[in-house]
């Protein structure tokens, strides 16, 4: 399993408790459009991801991340 696949698997697990509509998760799934998360949900989710990977996703970076694939890219980069 590549690093990226592993990251995506973990992201899916982390998204699950917040996935109230049961949306199928692909790299193209967007947090606002598809999952319809509000800012409070995003905040809780980001904190969970940060703790899972022991990274910091600054609010500046968060503003650029719209979908699962972009989040996986960011995590990959931040994990260095």
């Amino acid at each position: 399993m590549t690093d990226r696949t592993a990251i995506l698997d973990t992201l899916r697990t982390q998204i699950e408790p917040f996935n109230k509509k049961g949306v199928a998760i692909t790299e193209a799934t967007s947090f606002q459009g598809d999952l319809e998360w509000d800012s409070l949900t995003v905040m809780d989710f980001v904190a969970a991801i940060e703790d899972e990977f022991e990274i910091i996703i600054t609010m500046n970076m968060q503003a650029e991340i719209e979908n699962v694939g972009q989040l996986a890219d960011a995590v990959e980069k931040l994990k260095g």
Partner: protein
Amino acid sequence: MTETGLQSEKLPAEPAAAPVAHDLFAKFDPLLAEREALMSSGVRDPFGIVMEQVTSPTTAVIRGKETILLGTYNYMGMTFDPDVIAAGTRALEQFGSGTNGSRMLNGTFRDHVEAEDALKEFYGASGAIVFSTGYQANLGTISTMAGRGEYVILDADSHASIYDGCKMGDAEIVRFRHNSVEDLDKRLGRLPKEPGKLVVLEGVYSMLGDIAPLREMVQVAKKHGCMVLVDEAHSMGFFGEHGRGVYEAQGLVLGEDVDLVIGTFSKSVGTVGGFCISNHPKFEGLRFSCRPYIFTASLPPSVVATAATSVRKLMTAHDKRARLWDNARRLHAGLKGLGFALGTETCDSAIVAVILQDQAQAVVMWQALLEAGLYVNVARPPATPSGTFLLRCSICAEHTSDQIDRIITMFASAGRLAGATK
């Protein structure tokens, strides 16, 4: 411009259709629809209250009805203090109605300096900068103190002015879970060591009225080499020996533990304006770099004169401080006794937040209180934490025992009506 460049010699076969103007107002549709639905249920507009007369720090006339004010942040009741009013009146007569200019150019009058001197004395600080509002004090200080490549670390429940200060600046922004010392520590530990960092905290968080564990948070911030800013907007005048705020009440020292304190004139001081104070030797550098300080008109002379007088009186307002705490504790205990869910288990500040189920219940209850003659604030997401709907009470030192009793009685019947209590 006189150059028009090459012109085509004939008209295109089919003229391009004029672009359809995109209605930028369309983005307000959901908000307007929500508001219309609420209003059509027959309730009064919680965001359209007009005070026809204000008769004291604790009473006003709203739609012809004498109403007790319990949502004004007029904690120390300074708005009708005779010395404060006299100082404002004198300044209005001597210096005119406004300054017509920036603090940096023609907008600094005697009383702007006087207000800064009063603040320096109040806080025992070497530097004070007065801004035109508290909002601008946060906006300007945060956006200017943390630059590109540096970090601002803020509590998730921070006031909008703190968030906006972050947005306006060029720094990297990191958020930690509300009042969680452990979460702050963890996040600071993940940041690169080298860049400068500003941790932004509030003494009292105004939505629920809870206070921050500043002592522990500052300890963590200093361990990681950060500077600390504390917004004490909702604590000035009645926390700590000199009324300097929660940081003082928790035994922290300006210049050692806390680098910058932000405050406002619009709450305990009883007028309008904001400020930043510090003991840092290079503090004046902020004044010369801060856009929300430079590129706006300064406060009118009457405002800064009232502020200076009020700040000086707050230094020794021990009786008012005691009365405020007494009132706050009585109200908190009274509402708790009625069975309301409150923002804090104990009376931690001069804000008592009643937590309700949803917007409908909040507005029904708010209206019942208003009709009985009591004004409180309605607060809703996104201003509130965790999507809660609140009725927020802010207590004044000038509320009488009789008013507090009446307030509790009014809450008892409104709570039953709205189904918030049994």
